[in-house]
């Protein structure tokens, strides 16, 4: 079965809301990819004579800083553009790593059963009992913050859901006649897994990844907001919001603009994920 067959013909076209969501997500990807071309200045360029300038559409704003400046006179638009790049990249790699290892562990557990299954399920139980947020806060503080550890911590969020989902799907898929037929024809286990099982459960896993992505963005931004994620002089949406929190009274835009970007992105991804799930209608639990 090919990837094209795994995603059957469309059932129900995209509503205007879904189209707006897709447009927003595409914009975010373009902004992240072309940050160097789009941003008017570098995100660390300070201008201490132009601190706390409001956005151009407010009284006192000017066109040199379309979205205003922050407490160090840095251009908000430029900082947002680079922050989008950082946050999207971290959430993307976090999701991919979590999805990859979660799926592999789940497939191995469902395929091999026995002790492998027991170990895999114990690991998922442990992840449920100690949410990624707590592991991340503790480990980032004690091991010192670096970007590799940060991405690994972010990827912990949700891997256990891919593992449980993949395991369940593999167990039920293996019982079908076509898999038994392939096995009786003498196919090696790796062929069964990669040529038959994985392509058949791929759609469900893609939907799970889409629905999990907003949670991963929220984890990244929460940690950076708490000061445990991306460190200055770097920038991320959560870090900007955390810095802006200290200037709410006289410069609300420093916190509110990155907050809106996070909100729109998680919202767009959730709605897109819902639409994708309705379209592909796999065996994902409709409540998650």
């Amino acid at each position, binding site marked *: 079965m090919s990837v094209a067959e795994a995603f059957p013909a469309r059932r129900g076209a995209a509503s205007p809301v879904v189209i707006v969501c897709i447009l927003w997500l595409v914009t975010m990807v373009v902004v992240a990819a072309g940050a160097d071309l789009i941003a008017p200045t570098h995100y660390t360029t300070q201008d201490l004579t132009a601190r706390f300038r409001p956005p151009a559409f407010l009284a006192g704003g000017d066109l040199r800083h379309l979205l205003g400046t922050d407490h160090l006179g840095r251009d908000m638009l430029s900082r947002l553009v680079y922050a989008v790049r950082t946050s999207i990249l971290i959430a993307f790699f976090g999701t991919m790593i979590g999805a990859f290892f979660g799926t592999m562990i789940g497939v191995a557990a469902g395929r091999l059963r026995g002790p492998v*299954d*027991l170990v895999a*399920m*114990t690991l*998922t*139980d*442990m992840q*449920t*009992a*100690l*949410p*990624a*947020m*707590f*592991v991340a*806060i*503790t*480990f980032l*503080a*004690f*091991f010192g913050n670096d970007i590799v550890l940060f991405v690994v911590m972010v990827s912990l969020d949700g891997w256990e859901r891919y593992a*449980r989902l993949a395991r*369940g799907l593999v167990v039920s898929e293996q019982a079908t006649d076509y898999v038994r037929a392939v096995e009786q024809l003498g196919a090696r286990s790796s062929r069964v897994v990669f040529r038959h099982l994985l392509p058949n459960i791929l759609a469900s896993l893609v939907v799970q990844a889409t629905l999990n992505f*907003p949670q991963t963005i*929220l984890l990244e*931004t*929460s940690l950076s*907001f*708490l000061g*445990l994620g991306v460190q200055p002089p770097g920038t991320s949406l*959560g870090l900007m*919001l*955390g810095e*802006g*929190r200290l200037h*709410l*009274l006289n410069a*609300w835009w420093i*916190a*509110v603009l990155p*907050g*809106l970007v*996070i*909100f729109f992105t*998680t*919202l767009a991804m*959730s*709605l897109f994920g*819902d639409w994708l799930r309705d379209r592909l209608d796999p065996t994902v639990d*409709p*409540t998650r």
Partner: protein
Amino acid sequence: MPSTLLAIALRAIRAVVTLLLCVTIVFVALRAAGDPAEQMLPPETPPDVRAEYRAAWGLDRPIPAQYATWLTRVVEGDFGRSFSDDAPAFDVVVEALPRTLLLGGTALFLALLAGLTAGVAAALRHDTFADRALMGVAVLGYSMPVFFLGILLILLFVLHLRMLPSSGASTPLHLILPAVTLALPLTGRVARFARTATLEVMGRPFIRAARAKGLGRIAVIVRHALPNAAIPLLMFLGIEVGLALSGAVVTETIFAWPGLGRLLVKSVTLRDLPVVQAVILTVTAIIVASNLLVDVLHAFADPKVELARTLGGGR
């Protein structure tokens, strides 16, 4: 019945093993992360003072020995003393725990009240404008980052309207903003779940039978639909405990609510190992215990399913 009890016993053993594995990994990882004496004390500290500090806290012994001592003492209720202010770590956690439970409990109550009402209402007006509007609001709710919502509420109610206090826990008024902040994403998810569950149960034959014998809509929902949706709802809430505690870390930090989450953020910054370990153990125990409770209730409601799940090692 014996099979149900057996299932519960197996579940309980798994819960304890999970808890033990979690705290063990965190203990070993944190001790391996570096010498607390290096991290806690100022750089100019003389070597003999460092050695004394290590000996005083038992940090000079090998990690397995430290672990054995720590575990024996924890079983006796002694979590060690806070590195930063020398108070027993157990007391520090016990002081913060009720505040987190109060915050989480209030948020849960608000979320269930608003979420169930909205979800059931949406299901009863399935595929109408009201249904889509309610579910639209629900998606807005659970996509909203808690820290952004908290900041918007502070901007509106504290800085502009000057109606509510923003930080601390000294009066009941202080509870309002953090509880609403924590409750909103949960409300969105509960509403969505309640809608799906209601739609699912309303399509079953026994509901049609109840309607057919002349029961009114409200009576059907209260007497037949809701009791049947109780177990799935409970299992759903069991999963939500972890998410709510994660949300509480951020909410408590924004509103300076002195609960477990804020305590954790404060103690990791101070490298206060005994308190960090006590908080992690408490959080894990809360999650494991609530999942176990959900499983036990489920086992009594549906013995066959539960035994199969336990022996099969989860779904």
